């Protein structure tokens, strides 16, 4: 790889107490976030959670009402977007439709003031190098309209990388692509990230994408940061009920905490009570935290109302006697038929006290 695409010194990003008030949902409330140098971080949340607003605030496309944004320890809060040296990839690519692929990629170099602008030959060399990196050599003279969605996305990334940004910011990079292309591009983005070593933040509403791709995941909800952690941490030790339910199928059981033990329907559960005070609580369980037992045993009674085969496991739907519906994962060989009366034993789960308020 040539020099310009070689690993550069990665910088960290610090978001300190950023607040942005809008009339609508996509506001931010006192968000603190540290992105480590060279890290690939996902901003994950449902629509309206403020994840795109946070990304745009880091880029300088949105001005925060309060708080700071720092790159490598330097305050960038009042730097205009042009001076922040961020590579931004837009959700719908935002390629310049009247320019060829090569001109799109070269744009950031062409608009530099004369003293800082590389020579024509140098620009051409860099452009072809980047085309090579995004596997689009030979597409120089195509126009955006002549490219597929995945190709446009790659041109957008090459264009963002051309200016040697300090950090790379991607807004729903795969949002507009079909499932197959998404999967291919994920692996490819991971690869590019490893090769360039740039601190990268990407926004997504797809938890699989975030968990598969990112070093760490920041989960946002209603403009607040709920948790930041590695994929393992956010999945195994969710900090809030929202993180628990957003990251996968979860069933809530009303539970009681007594003497440091978790009880569901007066039967003990092995889940960690985490030094919670005695009282009412909620127990959240993944499908694999539940095990079918003969009727009358376990914490929960119900009727099998449906079964589905998912690869190497079977997922059954259980209608509880109390009217709830929940899903349980069982081995393929377990033979449970719809209509069967069963019990469920809760093997594990995450407990949150009721009237939970996020920090």
């Amino acid at each position, binding site marked *: 790889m040539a020099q310009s695409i070689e690993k550069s010194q990665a910088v960290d990003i610090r978001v300190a107490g950023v607040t942005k008030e809008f009339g609508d949902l996509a506001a931010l409330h006192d968000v603190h976030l540290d992105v480590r140098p060279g890290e690939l971080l996902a901003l994950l949340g449902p629509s309206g959670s403020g994840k795109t607003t946070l990304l745009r605030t880091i*880029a*300088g*496309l949105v001005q925060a009402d309060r708080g700071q944004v720092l790159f490598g320890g330097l305050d960038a809060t009042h730097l205009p*977007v*042009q*001076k*922040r*040296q*961020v*590579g*931004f990839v*837009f959700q*719908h*690519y*935002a*390629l*310049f*439709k*009247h320019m060829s692929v090569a001109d799109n990629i070269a*744009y*950031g170099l062409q*608009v*530099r003031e004369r003293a800082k602008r590389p020579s024509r030959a140098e620009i051409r060399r860099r452009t072809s190098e980047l085309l090579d990196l995004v596997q689009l050599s030979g597409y120089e003279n195509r*126009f*955006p*309209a002549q490219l597929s969605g995945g190709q*446009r996305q790659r041109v957008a990334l090459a*264009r*963002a990388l*051309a*200016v040697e940004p300090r950090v790379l910011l991607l807004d729903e990079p795969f949002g507009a692509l079909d499932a197959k292309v998404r999967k291919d591009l994920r692996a490819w983005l991971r690869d590019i990230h490893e090769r360039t070593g740039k601190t990268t933040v990407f926004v997504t509403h797809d938890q699989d994408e975030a968990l598969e791709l990112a070093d760490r995941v920041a989960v946002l909800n209603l403009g607040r940061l709920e948790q930041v952690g590695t994929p393992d941490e956010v999945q195994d030790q969710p900090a809030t009920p929202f993180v628990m339910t957003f990251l996968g199928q979860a069933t809530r059981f009303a539970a009681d905490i007594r003497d440091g033990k978790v009880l569901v329907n007066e039967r003990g559960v092995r889940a960690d009570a985490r030094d919670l005070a005695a009282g009412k609580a909620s127990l959240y369980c993944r499908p694999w935290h539940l095990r079918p037992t003969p009727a009358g045993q376990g914490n929960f009674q119900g009727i099998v109302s449906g079964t589905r085969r998912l690869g190497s496991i079977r997922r059954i739907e259980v209608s509880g006697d109390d009217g709830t519906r929940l899903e349980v994962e069982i081995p393929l060989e377990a033979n449970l038929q719809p209509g069967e009366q069963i019990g469920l034993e809760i093997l594990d789960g995450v407990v949150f006290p009721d009237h939970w308020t996020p920090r």
Partner: protein
Amino acid sequence: MSDLSATLPLSPPSQLSVVTEKRLIRQLAITVALAFLLLFLVLPLIVVFVEAFKRGLAGYFAAFQEEDALSAIGLTLTVAAIAVPLNLVFGLTASWAIAKFEFKGKSLLITLIDLPFSVSPVVSGLIYLLLFGAQGLWGKWLMAQGIQIAFALPGIVLATIFVTFPFVARQLIPLMQEQGTAEEEAALTLGASGWRTFFTVTLPNIKWGLLYGVLLCNARAMGEFGAVSVVSGHIRGLTNTIPLHVEILYNEYNFVAAFAVASLLACLALITLALKSFLEWRHGADLAGGTVN
């Protein structure tokens, strides 16, 4: 079932019948439309040229030898040369502001831009007279400064600008709204200045729409009668534009000259129409704001 179907009329479902209208009705509609076009648009146009050439080529060109005619043509060109570029800038700025920014009073601005379309040109001409005329609001002060606006070129230009203001803005606002701000934001993140972004990203995206708007604006600027008629004062050889000159010639029963000069405007209309059709045919998607991305 059998007795039910017997009562149903034997016609295709109602959604289909909309497009499979009876042939007779279809042909009738087309004939009526074509007859109207012929009678009210094509025929008058032919009459203009027939009347203009009634005394042959010599008679036709004699109309343009006259000094007053030449000065009218000159004045019309001057007015268009000032009003159209100004409206280009105004229209561009207004649509930029409306399409790319959120601000209070935006919908009021959009309504105001359309005002010249809903106000009679004669009324708008009168407004300028009331403001700038000798008896008008600012007339005395302007007179004292030696500035003449009413019954002079500035008044005619002002009235023309007012009447033709919506053309460029009307064309660009939907186009720019449709295109959104993503490309501009991309240019900014790549380090381009605001001006640079405008000239390298925004302008190329709207150039055909802009040209279209300018074309219509120019046609109207040259052909405007009502507003200009009020503010110009009809001073021969001084404040008469082509449309006013045509009227004067006609009122003097100088039909051949009147139609000859009118044929200039007719030609302008035909050229505008041709260019307009060409733009629509060649760059239709760019005019309607069709997104390629």
